[in-house]
């Protein structure tokens, strides 16, 4: 599990500090977090990617039925 560096953590806290202004619970001071950064998988072509994704026939993706748009 990746530990974020202090710079990234400072930014995370700053972003969520805005939540306090809009009525959220106070942001707590914490030096480390286990929120790992999002690392994309190795780049593959979109075509290959779609082929793999599409094979997951029963996968649950973000979907909207064409008749319900």
């Amino acid at each position, binding site marked *: *599990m990746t530990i*974020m560096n202090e710079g*990234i953590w400072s*930014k*995370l*806290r*700053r*972003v*969520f500090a*805005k*939540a306090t202004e*809009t*009525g*959220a*619970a*106070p*942001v*707590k*001071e*914490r030096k480390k*977090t*286990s*929120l*790992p*950064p*999002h*690392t*994309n*998988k190795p780049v593959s*072509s*979109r*075509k290959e*990617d*779609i*082929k*793999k*994704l*599409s*094979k*997951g*026939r*029963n*996968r*649950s*993706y*973000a*979907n*909207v*039925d*064409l*008749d*319900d*748009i």
Partner: protein
Amino acid sequence: MKNINTVTPFEDTHFDRKTVTVTRLPADVVEAKLGIALSDDQVKRLCGATTNARITVQFKSRWLKAEVGDEDVPAGLFFEVENPAYNRSDAVVGIYLDEASDEIMLYIKSVNFIKGRVKSLAARMVAVIVREAMNIGITRLRLLAAGGREWQDFVAEVHKPERWGGYFAWPLYGFDMALGDSDESLISEFPFFPKNLSACATVLDVLEIEGGREWWKVCGNGHYMEFDLSSPSTPSITTLDAFLGAAKV
């Protein structure tokens, strides 16, 4: 953002926060793992929870292949939304840190409303999410817009294959992506109509031109798309706002 910011009777009916419950696993997961605190109301809005939904908040440090297949789902704080009155399967939405941009983003992993249940429900769901995301400083939403010309059917019920509609629906609500190489080679086969198709670089560009919407519905191909909420006047925001106004939801 007039329509996005207006809480319509449609929203009151289908996104009634008072009826939604939030469970955190473990109870203090947000504080323990992230050192931040989101109120229950914020969680409800960030995942666009429908009326009577039950939300479970979970920290996912990694996703198993069995859970997400080849979809590139980020690690982060995820909200699983159970609601048999609206969903065929649970909706899953999460917030995460995007390493490349050093931004907090929101990922819509799964949405699967009951067919024919409520029209334009997903559009209003995006509006609910957008309002709260902007409040706390999230600047982009991301999802895999499934469907299109190279996508196989999916099978929700035995012997009833269906087409994915995300590749067409999400751009109508403001999500966008650059056109792929194969889209561009296909565009060269359409020299006359839609006019100016060859000048389009993104899906939203295509949808703006005459005949572009029809072209994308038939020829489009879904992949990862993003919604830009870095300001109240981005193309994503204006597209969603216009859709909500036209759909009256």
